[in-house]
């Protein structure tokens, strides 16, 4: 609080800021909020889109497989079911608040999956 003490120069401040930022960046390995905060209608919309998108992708793959292999109804039927399963998986991941991470596992159950 002494008046005659010289204030630290700006370059010094800059250097200290950089050091502090680097320390902070090292400590935290990119595990921030996993996804945007959602209101009720936002969540509803997101869940709907996730479910339908996966189903649509499944049916699309099924139709392509059918055209490629000539197995007319079967590819679509099987991939529709797989797509529905993927849709439910997406919804489960979306509502359990972990984004839509494929292959994500909650660190609390397991914990052996650190690579």
């Amino acid at each position, binding site marked *: 609080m002494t008046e005659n003490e010289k204030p630290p120069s700006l370059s010094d401040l800059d250097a200290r800021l950089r050091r502090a930022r680097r320390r902070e960046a090292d400590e935290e390995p990119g595990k921030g909020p*996993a996804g*945007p905060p959602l209101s009720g209608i936002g969540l509803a919309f997101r869940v709907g889109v996730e479910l339908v998108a996966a189903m649509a992708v499944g049916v699309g793959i099924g139709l392509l497989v059918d055209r490629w292999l000539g197995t007319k109804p079967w590819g679509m039927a099987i991939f529709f079911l797989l*797509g529905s*399963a993927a849709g439910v998986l997406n919804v489960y991941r979306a509502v359990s608040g972990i984004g839509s991470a494929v292959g994500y596992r909650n660190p609390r159950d397991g914990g052996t*999956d650190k690579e």
Partner: protein
Amino acid sequence: MAAAPPEDSPLHQFVIQPLVPIHVGNADLSFTNSSLFMVVAITLVTLFLTLGMRRQNLVPGRWQSMAEMSYEFVAGMVRDNVGSAGRKYFPFVFTLFMFVLFGNLLGLLPYSFTFTSHIAVTAALAVTVIVGVTLVGIATHGLHFFSFFVPKGVPVALLPLMIPIEVISYLSRPVSLSIRLFANMMAGHTMLKVFAGFVVLLGFLGGWAPLAMDVALTAFELLVAFLQAYVFTVLTCIYLNDAIHLH
């Protein structure tokens, strides 16, 4: 265009009109109103950032602080979701955010065109994101990246079932990413036009109620414009984090 919506339809605003017809072979590469607004968006972003940072004061003025805020916002988003490994990809994420944001905001001006309300545009952006992120994952981890699709702790007998499900789930990401942006923009702008149509139909006596509704909706659309640009970018960051860190 077999059946373009008539002039007074709420969907007329989404019609693509070629401004400079360009045909190469069978491909229609015309410069359309959609392309025009993309060029306008890019020009405005560039002007906003370069002119805002023209005088780099230590204590920023209003314009400079807006430019710095947008930078800080995206930088914080990348840092929180991807960590320091994501710093390399900041330019891409920032460009994506500003492009989508300015596209959404420009669309709110009367007589303008909202290019983010077309799934062709949002799907192209989303596919770019997913292909890029997958390439980043493969470049970072090599073939080990594909272990991403093998859920851990699952009995081997179930793997033939689980791997296709995970692959479909991964492939559905660009679909849901693009549908979310385009559907939000299209629904909001259609609603604005529907209520604006009521103003005309109800005339001077009854038109005030839908007019008030339109004012409120415009404010809401402003929120949606920011929110959807944010959602699009933050999901890009999350996908990038998955590819870099492979849970």
